[in-house]
């Protein structure tokens, strides 16, 4: 079903455009031109963030943190198996997807840990990456409380997810 949403929307748009006699081709190319500058503008920030994340992972800092913080996480109802995922999720989308795969292979896809991991993965975002992409092309460099709030709300989503999966 959802496979059809996008094509149908495009179809409607193009039909309207043809019907209304709008020079859609010119408008499309005009808009698409902006993509190159946007991509180039974002690149250095993504590079810096990814270097930081990769070094933290390679050096094992995230693993250590997972071990240190697991009592805190247990208190919040987050099982130890999911501590590393919780920590990695805001930093790396592909990394946490790989970790999710690992958790599901190890515990079986229908176990509690795996289902909770799926919910965590689906209900949160790669916060640092989103911050880089959204603010990179603006002049704002002081983000004030933006990232902390996003991190707290993704922790809330982890706690809520672990809780809900027990019943649903």
């Amino acid at each position, binding site marked *: 079903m959802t496979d059809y949403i996008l094509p149908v929307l495009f179809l409607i748009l193009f039909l309207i455009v043809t019907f209304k006699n709008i020079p859609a081709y010119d408008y499309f190319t005009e808009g698409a031109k902006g993509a*190159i500058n946007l991509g180039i503008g974002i690149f250095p920030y993504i590079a810096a963030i*990814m270097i930081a994340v990769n070094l933290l992972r390679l050096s094992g800092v995230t693993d250590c943190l997972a071990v240190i913080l697991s009592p805190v996480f247990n208190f919040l109802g987050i099982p130890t198996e999911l501590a590393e995922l919780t920590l990695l999720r805001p930093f790396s989308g592909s990394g946490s997807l790989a970790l999710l795969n690992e958790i599901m292979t190890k515990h079986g896809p229908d176990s509690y840990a795996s*289902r909770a991991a799926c919910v965590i993965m689906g209900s949160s975002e790669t916060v640092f990456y989103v911050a880089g992409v*959204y*603010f990179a092309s*603006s002049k704002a460099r002081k*983000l004030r409380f933006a990232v902390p709030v996003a991190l707290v709300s993704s922790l809330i989503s982890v706690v809520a997810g672990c809780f*809900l999966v027990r019943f649903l």
Partner: protein
Amino acid sequence: MLIGVIAMFFVKPQDTLEGMIDAVNNALKLSFSLMALYAIWLGILNILEQTGFNKKLSVGLRPMIYFLFGRVSDTTAEYISMNIAANLLGMGNAATPMGIKAINSMDDQSGVATDAMIMLFVINASSIQILPTTIISLRTALKSASPADIILPTIITSFISTLSAVLLVKIIIKIKNRKRRREYD
């Protein structure tokens, strides 16, 4: 990055540069694929702008936008409504370029993020995804008995996280305003 380099110094100094190059390689790939994505969506967005479709959409969403973001300009309201609509339809990749346009149009060039910019970022960073397709296909691949049974908890959870993010931002703004008012008195 500093912590990362220091930690690498103690653990695996020989892998430091390689790890950095790997990361930048990924960043390059990502930038390129984002460019492709942006080209499509910014093109479509421009057509929508010229046909006046997003004006209609933003008029419908205006009460909600004013409540969340305060008084924003018409162009900003249009970009924000496109961003939120794309998010709700599960087109996360379409939402990004529109969100970036919205952020840029709210920028006051002061180098400090405004309340409205933070609100938009937080909404996008807390994910309002409706169908976690990647995860469902991964579950199917690993032979889950019911790959889709995580949809309901995922929707509820992402609703909770977005709601908590919006409330947190609202509360922080309120506290800050009160402090400022007290300083003026």
